């Protein structure tokens, strides 16, 4: 009854409307900027910057007639399915054991399980390569004992293991809340009719989590489709091509890139992911009917699994060590040794050469500085921008606020590499765009566009929690929309702004895929520099850069946690 209805049918050219329109137009430009050139190019018979193009579907027929693309498509689907399977099984098992049972070490393991989310997939791929790659430390050590190499990371199975384990935290995160809130009396009922504790978990708790499992699995599938790092590190050397590496190689490898083919392939990938996102949205709407939590407060009860708990705890510790801690230790060790082999003690090979290389050359120093600037200032600017988008979408009478929210959330469907290609092409098309070309501003724009949905997701729930009467109160005592936003809502959403900033900082620091088409001398970042070192086979500097990125991440996360603790009352 007290909801403010839109007053927009009356045109009032005031400051509120100007700001709201500016925010909406900026969002539209940011999202359509890279999207339109890709769609446009896919229908043109020549590069989009050339005059007098003809429309045709020729690009699509060439794409579908290209056997390399067939392979890439098949490999992508296979890898995505495999990594989704692995990530889902692991993530759901973590959720069940960590949230529903009394296994020992839950507190520590909950934290450890989430750690891979802080680490860039590119760094994780390098780290795995150094340990488990064909000439990796562990691979060779095992080969010396067994006589033959026991595994091959240059396969879809190997890549699936890495991609799956690196995305398991996402599944765990999605399923843990539903596991935590599940009604323990349902499990008790199963126990009372004769089921053991593990049987009750399997037959009752697991099926109740089905909506979150499906949702998380779809998310992982999309994540695996748009993943570039793993296929690049483990697929490219043996000629295994995927959707994203196809775009990468076509765009960067060829002397004269086939614009039409790239456009068509990118459009296809966009279409596939968009469809998956629509399905996910429908699932989410449906899952709200799967309510196991009721208003009545219930004490969460954990299933006692006794000795099995110690076995699971041991398995999880071993797992974390193998997929995360050992590879990270390996990459740290690699960064301070001239090479890494089980045949020689690493302490005889210690060197600071790799760091000297990084700090000795202006371009490498600049890459590190740029990454920090982009994460620190770009992240802050992006946070403010997305906060404005969220405010206009949720706390204004702006006529197109629903459409604005839709546009703002669309970048979820845009893989980093396509965002990069699209931005690059937009620079070719737009007048005056060259002032941005080769600057870190362009990178910030691309990263911001990619980051909108995540930051929006962090801010919107808080906005819903701030009572509407607080802004109505301000309006009624004489504040206009903008004053209300600045002096009432912004201060109240400070904690949410902070967490959105943390998310964006880490995302901007880790981002590389959107940058590979956009960086230029002067605007390098850690990710692109790592890739160029990698292309030259210089593993040492790659390891050193990874260590630097990890150190910045660790420092930032520590600082963020500390200030979050002291700011709790805000």
């Amino acid at each position, binding site marked *: *009854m*007290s*909801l*403010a*209805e*839109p*007053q927009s*049918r*009356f045109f*009032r050219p*005031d400051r509120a409307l100007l700001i709201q329109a500016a925010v909406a137009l900026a969002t539209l430009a940011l999202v359509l900027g890279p999207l339109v050139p890709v769609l446009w190019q896919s229908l043109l018979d020549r590069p989009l910057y050339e005059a007098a193009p003809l429309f045709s579907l020729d690009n699509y027929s060439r794409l579908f007639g290209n056997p390399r693309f067939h392979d890439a498509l098949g490999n992508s689907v296979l890898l995505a399915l495999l990594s989704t399977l692995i990530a889902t099984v692991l993530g759901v098992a973590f959720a069940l054991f960590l949230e529903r049972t009394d296994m020992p070490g839950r507190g520590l393991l909950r934290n450890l399980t989430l750690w891979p989310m802080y680490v860039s997939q590119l760094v994780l791929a390098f780290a795995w390569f150094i340990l488990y790659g064909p000439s990796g430390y562990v691979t060779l050590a095992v080969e010396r004992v067994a006589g033959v190499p026991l595994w091959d990371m240059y396969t879809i199975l190997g890549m699936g293991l890495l991609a799956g384990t690196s995305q398991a935290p996402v599944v765990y995160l999605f399923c843990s809340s539903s596991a935590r809130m599940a009604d323990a009396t349902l499990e008790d009922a199963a126990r009372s009719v004769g089921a053991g504790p593990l049987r009750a978990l399997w037959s009752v708790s697991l099926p109740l989590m089905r909506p979150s499992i499906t949702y998380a699995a779809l998310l992982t599938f999309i994540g695996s489709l748009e993943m570039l790092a793993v296929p690049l590190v483990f697929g490219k050397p043996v000629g295994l091509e995927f959707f994203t590496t196809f775009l990468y190689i076509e765009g960067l490898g060829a002397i004269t890139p086939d614009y039409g083919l790239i456009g068509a392939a990118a459009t296809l990938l966009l279409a596939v992911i968009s469809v998956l996102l629509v399905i996910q949205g429908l699932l989410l709407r449906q899952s709200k009917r799967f309510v196991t939590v009721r208003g009545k407060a219930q004490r969460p009860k954990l299933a006692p699994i006794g000795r099995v708990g110690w076995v699971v705890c041991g398995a999880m510790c071993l797992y974390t060590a193998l997929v995360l801690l050992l590879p990270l230790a390996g990459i740290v060790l690699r960064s301070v040794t001239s090479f890494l082999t089980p045949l020689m003690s690493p302490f005889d090979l210690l060197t600071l050469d790799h760091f000297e290389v990084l700090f000795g050359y202006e371009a490498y120093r600049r890459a590190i500085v740029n990454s920090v600037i982009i994460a620190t200032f770009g992240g802050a600017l992006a946070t403010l921008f997305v906060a404005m988008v969220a405010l206009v979408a949720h706390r204004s009478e702006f006529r197109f606020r629903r459409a604005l929210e839709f546009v703002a959330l669309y970048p979820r469907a845009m893989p980093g590499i396509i965002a990069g290609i699209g931005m690059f092409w937009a620079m070719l098309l737009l007048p005056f765009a060259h002032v941005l070309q080769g600057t870190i501003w362009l990178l910030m724009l691309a990263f911001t566009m990619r980051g909108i949905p995540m930051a929006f997701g962090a801010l919107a729930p808080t906005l819903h929690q701030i*009572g509407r*009467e*607080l802004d*109505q*109160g*301000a*309006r*009624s*005592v*004489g*504040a*206009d*929309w903008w*004053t209300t936003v600045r*002096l*009432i809502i912004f*201060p*109240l959403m400070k904690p949410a702004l902070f967490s959105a900033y943390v998310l964006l900082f880490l995302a901007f620091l880790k981002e590389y895929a959107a940058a590979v088409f956009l960086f230029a001398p002067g605007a390098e970042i850690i990710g692109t520099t790592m890739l160029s070192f990698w292309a030259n086979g210089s593993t040492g500097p790659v390891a050193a850069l990874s260590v630097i990125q990890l150190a910045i991440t660790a420092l930032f996360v520590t600082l963020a946690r500390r200030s979050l603790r002291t700011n709790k009352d*805000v």
Partner: protein
Amino acid sequence: MSEVVVDRLNKHYGPVQALHEVSLHVPDGEFLTLLGPSGCGKSTTLFAIAGLDSPSGGRITVGGRDFYNGASGLDLPPEKRNLGLVFQSYALWPHMNVRQNLAFPLRLRKVGKKEQDARIEEALALVEMGAFIDRYPHELSGGQQQRVALARTLVFRPSLLLLDEPLSNLDAKLRIKARSWLKQLQRQLGLTTLYVTHDQSEALALSDRIVVMEKGRVSQLGTPEEIYRRPANAFVADFVGASNFLPGEVVDRNAAASTCRVKLAGGDVLTCLWPDTSAPPAGSLLTVRPEHVGLSAEPPLPGPDVNILAGRILERAYLGARLLYTLDCGHGLVLMAETETRVEGDTAWLRFAVDDTLLVRA
């Protein structure tokens, strides 16, 4: 001058019509209460006047100035209306202390620092909260928050005071104290006040006049006594206080005396008031309040100004000062009587004045 004129206000939420041709006229300095059950449109009306809820048609004028005009498309934003609105939840900004909460509207009006301090002190003194000036909202009790919320609206001297169920979050005892205090304050300031509540006793105690609303329409507008003594229809009679309803058939009408005679299902003929100039429509109901029904063990003396019925006592409830009887008067007619008289035995005579018996539209 801050006379409020609301003229044929409409409000649609999609297919639902929340307000239906609502018209009000509030003279300067009056305390007017919008009373009704939840969903009747009282808060929608208040928020439309405040500018926080856009109507679909009609006109709102305050102090001769158009705030909303559906015909010309004018809809003044809330911040341009200079109205003091007190929210049900108080809406004190949690990140500002009492002083900052009160200073905010003054800062917006570019009031100088010195003047600000003086006015904040004055407003807090008015609500007797001067000692709490440096507290944050979460450090105040519900009653104190409510006073601060009121001070925040008084501090910028609004032309109109709008109150949205401001007492509903207080406990019963505090509510009655706050009620008399609020009334006194309003008298003292002479501010035109619109008050929204669903509590009929609050409305009767506070208001100069009451608007009873039902399903987005104005059911009746009148003084508390008019509303209570002469409800315009069965809804008002039922919502404000409790009422007995007696179905019957109008047998004749005395237009000069504004009375009717009505025959009940059991054959008894009762006399009642019908103040309207037109004939009563079919389906109209006789109504009499339980507290106007007297009981006696012996048959009372009949007379032209009194109605009499016989009944069997079904239940006696002890209310403290009074007793509430439930009586079966035959033919499915069950009446309540609230009286100090103690009647023993199974049967009793009911007696109520014609002046307390009203014929109302269903």
